[in-house]
């Protein structure tokens, strides 16, 4: 099986598709802000800065092309969030979609949660492929017929129609967050989910919108004593009582909801002592964790900070079991990256289906894969140049210093405006979705 098979270096990654406008003039509303496969991998959702959600559906594999996986085509597009205005604080609330999380499928319809800074919405995406025709009392356009012309009884029947995909908001979970929402996570009980902002985590029931329970609150009594904020949170994939949240100080706290109603006291604290030789003005910024993800098997979790990816064993709190340097060559450039604001970029990370490979983005439209068992890493680029169908991607290399070899790119030539913050891996197969600023690239492994 491709997904469970060899790691990144046995796999040859090929270009499959690219979505989005070709021109370099990027409209801000089109900037992709989140990417997420659903549980089967058949659907791929993206959210953008303009508050829209676009869902792609994988085509069924055709008999004609047994060696190629189905393409992803647009399935549904809808406006999830609109810009709002908080009159009390005189603040505009951005419509940018921060996160999308799919619910597991229970019936014919699909459900997903999407959130902006303040409001979470539950969307139902359903298909309509038939419609009732032949009403007795109505014309085809809906107008009522003159009753005197009705002489027979006719029962409407369903007739096939062109497939229509409808998205409708089923629940709106609002007014529960004072600060900006950074994460949502569906619980394995499939009844509750959490939403996290900078200082608080709330627990919701999917059916109930008028109340939520606050389970973590790290707001100090005096805001001037604030030293850290919550940067990401996630429920354990199969233990419905366990959640983790990461902080701007580089720590991760694991909380058990059985211990107390309020999880301010953590059950476990994961922290690696700082290397004093790496201390700089920017040590705090680069140690801030931008993403935390449990492995599919629930034994490990992965964190992403500015320069590295760390894998933690849930049973060991004092240090990660694996650390991968994403772009260590940037350590000497931190001051420039502070100047151009890149040091504040929040990169996400993801696991492959069998937890053997992890992936994260970098600059210059590079993305990196780390193969855990073999300790191998790979750098690839999402670019229009390597966008020929089924073209194999060539591994890239950054020259950190010294003599630049052929095909290497020097650190100073990197384009820091081209960043890959959001990536997603198909839950079973070797298919990945990589978001550049306004394009979505889909790559898959070469099938022989």
């Amino acid at each position, binding site marked *: 099986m491709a997904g469970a098979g060899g790691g990144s270096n046995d796999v040859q990654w090929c270009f499959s598709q690219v979505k989005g406008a070709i021109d370099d003039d990027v409209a801000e509303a089109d900037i992709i802000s989140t990417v997420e496969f659903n549980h089967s991998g058949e659907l791929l959702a993206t959210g953008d800065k303009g508050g829209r959600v676009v869902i792609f559906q994988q085509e069924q594999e055709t008999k004609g092309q047994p060696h190629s996986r189905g393409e992803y085509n647009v399935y549904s597009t809808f406006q999830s969030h609109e810009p709002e205005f*908080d009159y*009390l*604080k005189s*603040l*505009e*609330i*951005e419509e*940018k979609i921060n996160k999308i999380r799919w619910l597991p499928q229970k019936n014919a319809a699909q459900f997903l949660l999407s959130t902006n*800074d303040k409001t979470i919405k539950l969307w139902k995406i359903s298909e309509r492929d038939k419609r009732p025709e032949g009403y007795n009392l109505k014309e085809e356009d809906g107008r009522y017929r003159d009753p005197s012309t009705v002489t027979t009884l006719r029962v409407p029947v369903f007739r096939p129609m062109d497939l229509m995909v409808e998205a409708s908001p089923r629940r*709106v*979970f*609002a*007014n*529960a967050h*004072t*600060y*900006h929402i*950074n994460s949502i996570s569906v619980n394995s009980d499939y009844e509750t989910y959490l939403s996290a902002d*900078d*200082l608080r985590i*709330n627990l919701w029931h999917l059916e109930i*919108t*008028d*109340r*939520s*329970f*606050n389970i973590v*609150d790290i*707001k100090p009594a005096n*805001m*001037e004593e*604030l*030293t*850290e*904020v919550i*940067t990401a949170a996630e429920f354990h994939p199969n233990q419905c009582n366990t959640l983790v949240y990461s902080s*701007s100080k580089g720590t991760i706290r694991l909380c058990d909801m059985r211990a107390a109603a*309020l999880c301010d006291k953590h059950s476990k604290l994961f922290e690696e002592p700082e290397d004093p030789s790496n201390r700089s*003005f*920017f*040590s*705090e*910024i680069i140690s*801030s964790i931008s993403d935390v993800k449990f492995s599919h098997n629930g034994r490990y979790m992965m964190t992403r900070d500015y320069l590295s990816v760390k894998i933690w064993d849930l049973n060991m709190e004092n240090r990660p079991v694996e650390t991968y340097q994403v772009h260590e060559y940037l350590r000497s450039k931190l*001051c420039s990256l*502070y*100047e151009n*604001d890149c040091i*504040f970029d929040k990169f996400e990370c993801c696991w492959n289906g069998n937890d053997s490979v992890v992936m994260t983005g970098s600059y210059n439209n590079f993305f990196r894969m780390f193969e855990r068992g073999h300790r191998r890493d790979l750098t690839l680029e999402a670019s229009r140049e390597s966008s020929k169908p089924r073209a194999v991607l060539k591994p890239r290399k950054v020259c950190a210093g010294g003599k630049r070899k052929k095909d290497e790119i020097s650190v100073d030539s990197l384009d820091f405006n081209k960043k890959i913050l959001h990536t997603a891996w198909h839950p079973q197969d070797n298919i990945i979705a990589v978001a550049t600023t306004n394009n979505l690239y889909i790559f898959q492994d070469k099938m022989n």
Partner: protein
Amino acid sequence: MEQNTEAKRIMALSLGKMYSSRSQRGGLRLHRSLLLTLVMRSAQDIYHSSRVVTEIWPANGQHAQKALPAEEPMDTSGAQFQTCALTTSPEDSQLRCAKSDENKENLEPVRSNRRTRKRRGKAAGEPDFLPSKRARIRMEAAEELLSAQVTELCGTNCLSERTCSSHVL
């Protein structure tokens, strides 16, 4: 000295970022503000400690990190010595901080420093005998901005209750 210049540059950068983040769409971001504050404080600490070390050990070749005297203020609230240290002071030994006249204790190191340090460049438009006042205002503005940002983020409708109730939309 390089660290000193670097620290000052980072402080200026950070202040600029704090000012511009106020007009950002979506409101002040707490995480970003916190990180900016932390960088600002690191830079301030480095700046003050390196200036203080220079004041005590002028260019006589000694680089020893002597333990700083107890009256050495590390915070920016009001120490006369501190405000003088922040100035880009001219080398003319006759010019001195107007404030430092009141503080006889710290007069000596400041004066010797002025004799040996190179001219850094004049404060634009300001009379040379008043640089300390300008520096203090700058630092106070930074502190005010930081606490204003924090209060703003705290907001007028901070929810202190553990269970939130909300409207059904």
